[in-house]
């Protein structure tokens, strides 16, 4: 029995040793990085984080402005309907007017012809390109991804033990953190000796490589804010990230509010059931 225990302990040590070595190897970035992103995104403060989080409507409106004036030139957002923009604090009439600035294809009409008309609140954001092939052809072969779900479709692996803490801190903002980091990361220069492929742009926060096809999309002062918010890349990046989080998860606030009521109920109910259980078991036999 003792022998078994000794060999077991030996295996245990071997385990711990190799695991440590594996982790050390993972940390070791050579001049040519093999793990991406090169830098983990910085965690930002978001109004929609945490158990009572909610979107800041002014921020979402600024984000929409950026999407409309900058991103929508290349990126579609085809799961989002204009009518949902009322969530951003706009009136029905404002949404109608906003939609009317876009043209969508409809038809066929009575003559069998397709035609374009002004978009209605029930329509979705139209795509900037007729199809994915056209989008790729116009962008150096890399079709710009749709933005409807991008804030939930990107997330840098958190690693052990951070992913355990994330359960308790309710960290669910990996997407917006990533978008913010990517948009503010273009100004960093590649280290000396690093090869950056032609037609791509170095960004140490890019999730899938050292550089990406998209050039720096936005610069200081490019979009005019009417509410006096700073017109900086950092602020723009925060606003578009928040807006994209809303686009991906429009019912986030309802979810968290419902959740609070459900948690209160379940905790109180658990207390009552436990008290009943004590009472019932006290009478056993």
């Amino acid at each position, binding site marked *: 029995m003792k022998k078994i225990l000794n060999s077991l302990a030996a295996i245990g040590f071997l385990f711990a040793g190799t695991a440590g070595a594996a982790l050390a190897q993972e940390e070791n970035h050579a001049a040519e990085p093999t793990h991406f992103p090169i830098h983990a995104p910085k965690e930002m403060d978001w109004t929609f984080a945490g158990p009572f989080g909610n979107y800041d409507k002014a921020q979402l409106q600024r984000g929409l402005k950026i999407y409309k004036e900058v991103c929508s030139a290349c990126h579609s957002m085809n799961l989002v309907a204009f009518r*949902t923009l009322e969530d951003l604090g706009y009136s029905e009439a404002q949404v109608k007017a906003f939609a009317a600035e876009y043209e969508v294809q409809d038809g066929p009409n009575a003559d069998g012809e397709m035609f374009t008309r002004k978009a209605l609140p029930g329509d979705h954001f139209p795509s900037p390109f007729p199809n994915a092939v056209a989008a790729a052809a116009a962008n150096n072969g890399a079709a710009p991804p749709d933005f409807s779900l991008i804030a939930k479709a990107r997330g840098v692996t958190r690693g052990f033990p951070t992913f355990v803490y994330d359960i308790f801190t309710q960290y669910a903002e990996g997407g917006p953190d990533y978008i913010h980091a990517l948009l503010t990361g273009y100004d960093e220069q590649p280290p000396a000796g690093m090869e950056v492929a032609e037609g791509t742009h170095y960004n140490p926060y890019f999730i899938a490589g050292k550089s990406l096809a998209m050039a720096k999309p936005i610069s200081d002062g490019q979009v005019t804010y009417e509410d006096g918010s700073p017109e900086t890349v950092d602020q723009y990046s925060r606003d578009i990230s928040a807006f994209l989080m809303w686009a991906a998860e429009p019912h986030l606030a309802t979810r968290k509010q419902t959740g609070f009521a459900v948690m209160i109920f379940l905790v109180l109910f658990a207390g009552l059931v436990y008290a009943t259980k004590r009472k019932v078991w006290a009478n056993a036999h």
Partner: protein
Amino acid sequence: MSGGHSTYSPKTGIGRWIDARMPLPRLVHDSFVSYPVPRNLNYAYTFGGILSIMLVAQILTGVVLAMHYANDTTLAFQSVEKIMRDVNSGWLLRYMHSNGASFFFIAVYIHIMRGLYYGSYKAPRELLWILGCIIYLLMMATGFMGYVLPWGQMSFWGATVITGFFTAIPLVGEWVQQLLLGGFAVDNPTLNRFFALHYLLPFMIAGVVILHVWALHVVGQTNPTGIEVKSKTDTVAFTPYATIKDGFAMVVFLAVFAYFIFYIPNYLGHPDNYIQADSLKTPAHIVPEWYYLPFYAILRAITFNIGPIDSKLGGVLAMFGSIAVLFVVPWLDTSKVRSAVYRPWYKLFFWLFVINAIFLGWLGSKPAEGLYIPLMQISTLYYFAFFLIIMPVLGLIETPRRLPNSITEAVLEKNKGGSAHPAGATAAPETRG
């Protein structure tokens, strides 16, 4: 379903009329009211009940989701997003269902571990255990096919990788794979048949659950001492004692479940599944859902050929073997003592097994490269050694601790030896003679 004599006596005329013709109320009474359970069951024994409500919750949310889901590769992804955005409380149904699958597996893993710890598989409960293994297999198939339905990147590529396993089988492999896919690659026929099967299998699970509960009610529950019930003082009635205890555990479990649904609903998912499936873009790391990760690590641990078996077939055999071995556990354990409470060495190896299984899960999420490979191999080795070497050998050489004569004696002894109850606390029922 109960083995003993029925104590049901209908009080009303209608009750007697029904009882004489189709005694369903009697069956329910005997199974869930008067059914005797050991008095010393702890909270580890509440997961059977928790699993039943999880199955019901999954079926109910699933049926409603199916009313809104479009089973077509061009529409599936958008229809799921329509549920998330436009269907009333659709986001809630969908998050309940996707997180529900994970919590179903959390509960079943605790349930299986409880069985392994207290020796619940030993005679006369072998069939009960095997029926449980069948349920687990059906759950895995259901979970896998359900993950394909949203038609995200991980859905598509997960399905491609997992159905690809079957090509490793000699002679019939390719035929089996094409039968599963309905073609040569994952496509619309695959999605159609997966949806049909995803809707069918939960009802098959429900059927096997009935057999599982039936078998349980014939042989009776085990208990932490592993000693069979000997007298009436060893048991309490299912209702109210077990019902209220199970009820409390269920509410606590639901609270944890709700925390995930409402605050971190995508924590257990993969971001790539919010990208629509694209057969031309392979994700950097294809990983299955978390609950398959230990098996995924075992699959990839076999990087070498064994005689005529190449590494691919070897990996597939090891992976299926890791589940198949569960079916023969009742005959691998040679110990005469059931419960790990009285088996100090088994207890140690059991907990190492649990830690090893979690470690395998972590390895499953890592790429098969560098030092992860030998770690996967060592971990896989321990996984199989636990069942194939430790279980049979330990039963023969281990000296178990002295067993109490009865459940009642064990309960009284524990109270005497254990830390004193706080003054004024309700006397624990277990202590009353």
